[in-house]
């Protein structure tokens, strides 16, 4: 009998915890005076990486300029472990009103966010939403598509290569969009993907780039945080498109363009809302091309007519055209997007299958 009672108690407790949090109409967090405000940035990498974390650091500098009286906290290279939870808790204990986390930490962040309901949390590439938690990312697939158009015109062999980190949605989105862009002008182009299982490992990325080039790839694309691929491409006389910042000085002949990141506007806007008492948690913000991400000025060796053609595509996309319309097949040949259908921003954000012509990624 006691056992039975305990069991039913446990069941009741489980049912309680499984119940969804009461969904309330989103109420904004209370306003904060600028002189009392504390803004925190938690970075995944070092701000000296010249890439991802560097651009987020620029956003912090921009916010400092916009809100000179506010206090700023910044922690670099936060490992994806219990240390992250500790760091985020520290932010809250230091009175942070708004916290930017520059990569996905998932539950490591949510566990802190759920206890600190007066603090706004913004997770880059995150997926969770609550009253005080939201996320943001960029529509990198649009820029990748534009870069892909130029790549399709510039590649002589039609064999493109992608050096990526992990089999995550961002990698699928990048490689797929780039190849679809290339195929819009060179229908037989293919894309070989190598994953190095790290976001930052220059030795691994240069080896991966060499391996691709030795196998006949003549145009590389990479979203990694370092510029090794570009340097390898320059040495081997092939082309390379990159992410994050303008890196043409590292490979002036190889440089095609880069997917530039600019979080300044978004971060300043969010901090402004938080201070004025207008900030609410909720669904992800996907920054479109032109506001947060864009292609860099074309490289010196990109023929002007190729640049113009890709720019025309860019203008069409910014005018509202969605290039990710059916029919799109996956690598196994199955039709995933039928004719007349278009992929939604969320489908693109959570892309998890390789398109036809992409090899090295699992379906």
């Amino acid at each position: 009998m006691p056992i039975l009672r305990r069991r039913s108690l446990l069941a009741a407790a489980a049912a309680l915890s499984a119940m969804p949090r009461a969904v309330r109409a989103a109420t904004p967090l209370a306003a904060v005076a600028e002189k009392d405000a504390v803004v925190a940035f938690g970075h995944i990498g070092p701000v000296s990486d010249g890439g991802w974390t560097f651009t987020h650091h620029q956003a912090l500098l921009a916010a400092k300029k916009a809100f000179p009286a506010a206090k700023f906290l910044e922690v670099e290279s936060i490992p994806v472990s219990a240390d992250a939870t500790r760091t985020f808790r520290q932010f809250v204990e230091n009175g942070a009103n708004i916290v930017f986390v520059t990569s996905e930490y998932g539950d490591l962040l949510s566990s802190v966010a759920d206890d600190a309901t007066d603090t706004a949390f913004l997770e880059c590439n995150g997926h969770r939403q609550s009253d005080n938690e939201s996320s943001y990312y960029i529509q990198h697939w649009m820029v990748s598509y534009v870069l892909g158009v130029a790549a399709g015109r510039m590649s002589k062999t039609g064999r493109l290569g992608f050096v990526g980190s992990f089999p995550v949605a961002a990698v699928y989105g990048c490689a797929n969009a780039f190849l679809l862009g290339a195929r819009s002008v060179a229908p037989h182009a293919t894309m070989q993907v190598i994953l190095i299982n790290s976001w930052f490992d220059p030795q691994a990325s240069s080896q991966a780039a060499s391996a691709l080039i030795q196998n006949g790839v003549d145009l590389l694309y990479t979203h990694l945080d370092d510029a090794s691929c570009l340097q390898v491409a320059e040495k081997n006389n092939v082309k390379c498109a990159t992410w994050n910042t303008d890196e043409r000085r590292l490979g002036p002949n190889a440089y095609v363009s880069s997917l530039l990141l600019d979080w300044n506007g978004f971060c300043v806007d969010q901090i402004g809302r938080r201070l004025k008492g207008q900030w609410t948690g909720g669904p992800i913000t996907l920054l479109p091309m032109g506001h947060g991400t864009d292609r860099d000025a074309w490289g010196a060796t990109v023929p002007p007519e190729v640049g113009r053609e890709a720019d025309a595509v860019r203008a069409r996309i910014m005018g509202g055209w969605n290039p990710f319309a059916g029919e799109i097949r996956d690598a196994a040949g199955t039709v995933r997007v039928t004719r007349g259908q278009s992929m939604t921003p969320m489908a693109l954000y959570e892309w998890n299958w390789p398109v036809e012509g992409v090899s090295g990624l699992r379906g």
Partner: protein
Amino acid sequence: MEVLSGLLSTAILSGGVLALAALGELLAERVGVLNLGVEGLMALGAMSAVATVGATHDPWLGFLAALLVGGGAGILFALATVVVRASQVLCGMALTMGGLGLSATIGRPFAGQPAGATFSPLPIPLLDRIPVLGPALFQQSVPVYLAFLLLPAAIAWLLFRTRHGLTLRAIGENPAACDAAGIRVAPIRFCYVVLGAAVSASAGAYLTLGFVPSWSDGVTAGRGWIAVALVIFAGYRPWRIVGGALLFGLVNALGYLAQARNWGVPSAFLAMLPYGVTLLFMIAPGLLRRGGALIAAPAALGVPYYRDEK
């Protein structure tokens, strides 16, 4: 053919980093001092090499700077472990963390910048014409020849062909006996720890001036730890270290080739492969001749020497 040559060439490039770092570690371990600070030394070497090259545009000065900075850090480490006789494991950890942190802080202004100058290949006439092997083996830069030929030859000769080498090995095995025989243990240990640290740090210079031509925080990515493991793997012998480094580089490069050629093996498995193969090579000989002493580690490795202790 070109693919094979490319594979070998990448293997040599990436193996060279390990070979240099591990040869430096060997010098310290042969006299009985375990230096776990290789990772930190490499980071310091990598950073100071790029900093120097940025100012002077001469890769050799960069290499020299790495040797000097490594030697400087080695003096600190030797003071702590040989003179003060603190725990070698803890001091090594401190050297790793200190080296990584210090190089990240000092190197911040030029992180991500391309190295001002890099080592250019020095083809060896005639030999570089050999098909497949020629371009991979004999069209490399001088530090590669240093790591794979000159240095291991010099260390092997020193350790196993000279009287001084016998002394070194004896100190690693039984410092008390050496002391009784009139050999000055502490000064010799001190010298070789410093020398080893300098060589290990030069692996960092090789990395940033010969392989990845720029410096950034975290560029060593744990290769220093692999170098420490490689010394054990190679049974504390210089030529085996070079072989092990080459094997590790080869399996590593094969992982990328497999992805580039789309062999359909998951990338996580390929990334694990070098470690798996290393493990296999360590276990296999032990299984084949059971009971035999496999790893001849210097008997006094990691033990501080006190004359008074009876």
